[in-house]
């Protein structure tokens, strides 16, 4: 009797051990993929080139990065306008416009919402001299900084006769390596 008790108890214990270890093994042997769980919080964002760098005051740069684009205009347009007039005082004159025909309010109203506008219907470029193509994307070879400098410093005739020629072009017009015509388009690293 006592022997049987020990025998059965041992059998139960061993069985449960086997069952427990089996069930553990079952879990381990499931084909688990990479773990993508969790919540990811905004750190940095960007639409158009150099917008945060140029138009956002130093003490607001982090805040700009965690303001969703749909709220950027209401929150930051007036700061953009102040900073634009600081960079290029001509914009403070009534009626003064850039080469796109925008006054300070209209220009900064466009820029404060930091998204890139992209056409799905054809040419995609930041600016190529053709009015209809303006802000239809950003291609690798686009000289975006010179375009932005012309719009900030160039005045109404900035494309052909800038008000501030020595500030309207950084005189770096192309990348240091040729881009590829095929995917992945960017040049191999140095």
């Amino acid at each position: 009797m006592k022997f049987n008790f020990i025998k059965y108890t041992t059998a139960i214990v061993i069985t449960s051990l086997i069952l427990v270890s089996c069930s553990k093994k079952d879990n381990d042997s499931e084909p688990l993929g990479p773990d993508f769980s969790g919540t990811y919080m905004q750190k940095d964002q960007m639409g158009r080139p150099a917008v945060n760098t140029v138009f956002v005051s130093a003490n607001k740069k982090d805040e700009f990065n965690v303001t969703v684009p749909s709220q950027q205009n209401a929150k930051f347009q007036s700061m953009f306008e102040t900073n634009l007039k600081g960079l290029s005082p001509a914009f403070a004159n009534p009626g003064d416009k850039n080469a796109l025909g925008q006054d300070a309010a209209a220009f900064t109203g466009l820029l404060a919402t930091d998204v890139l506008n992209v056409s799905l219907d054809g040419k995609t470029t930041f600016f190529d001299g053709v009015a209809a193509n303006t802000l239809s994307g950003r291609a690798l070879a686009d000289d975006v900084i010179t375009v932005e400098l012309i719009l900030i410093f160039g005045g109404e005739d900035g494309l052909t006769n800038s008000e501030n020629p020595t500030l309207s072009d950084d005189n770096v017009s192309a990348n240091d390596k040729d881009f590829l015509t095929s995917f992945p388009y960017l040049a191999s690293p140095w």
Partner: protein
Amino acid sequence: MKKSKILLGTVIIAIVGLITVVAADHIDAPAAKGTTADITDFYAFQGENTSNLVFVANVQGLLAPTATAGASFDENVLVEFNIDTNNDNVEDLVIQAIPRDGKMYFFGPVAPSTTGLTSSINSLILPSSVAITKYGSNAVVAEANGMKMFAGPRDDPFFMDFARYGEIIGGKATAFNNPGTDTFKGTNVLSIVVEVPKARVGGKGKINTWVETKVKQ
């Protein structure tokens, strides 16, 4: 002779240091600056196949060639391409890219479960992936579900006389040099490039798009 060499060396180091500090403004916000979540640039353009649109997000800029092999994507950083198809500047579609164990995984384009500053990855979506190209190797490209994907180090495609711009803004110069000097010459970035059929990101007309980095909490 030796002393002047040392002095010259010190001056060169000081100049290089100044340029690096100024150029680091390309990395624009203090909270993101120098982290693995730094976005340096964002591009969106029509592909070689004009039915496709290409998105490029670059992070971790100003990598010297000697530092590039040691740079890697952070598994805690989600890179999210946001696509607004109805002009309200709220994302209707996202393409999420996140690395795991040497591969970059892509989810979408898909409607996000939530819009705004927090994101999660829908584990029910089957991701596409590409092996992350190692420094010094040919670009590894994957194609799946009509998409092309790449992730790895590339030459920084951005070009600008950023150092001179910094001097002008800082009141130390009044004009750009001609010719200018590309501050980003000879430097690399970590790039994520994804090409998708236009039909999957709005079809036609104009979209608004921006890129975000998000850090796992």
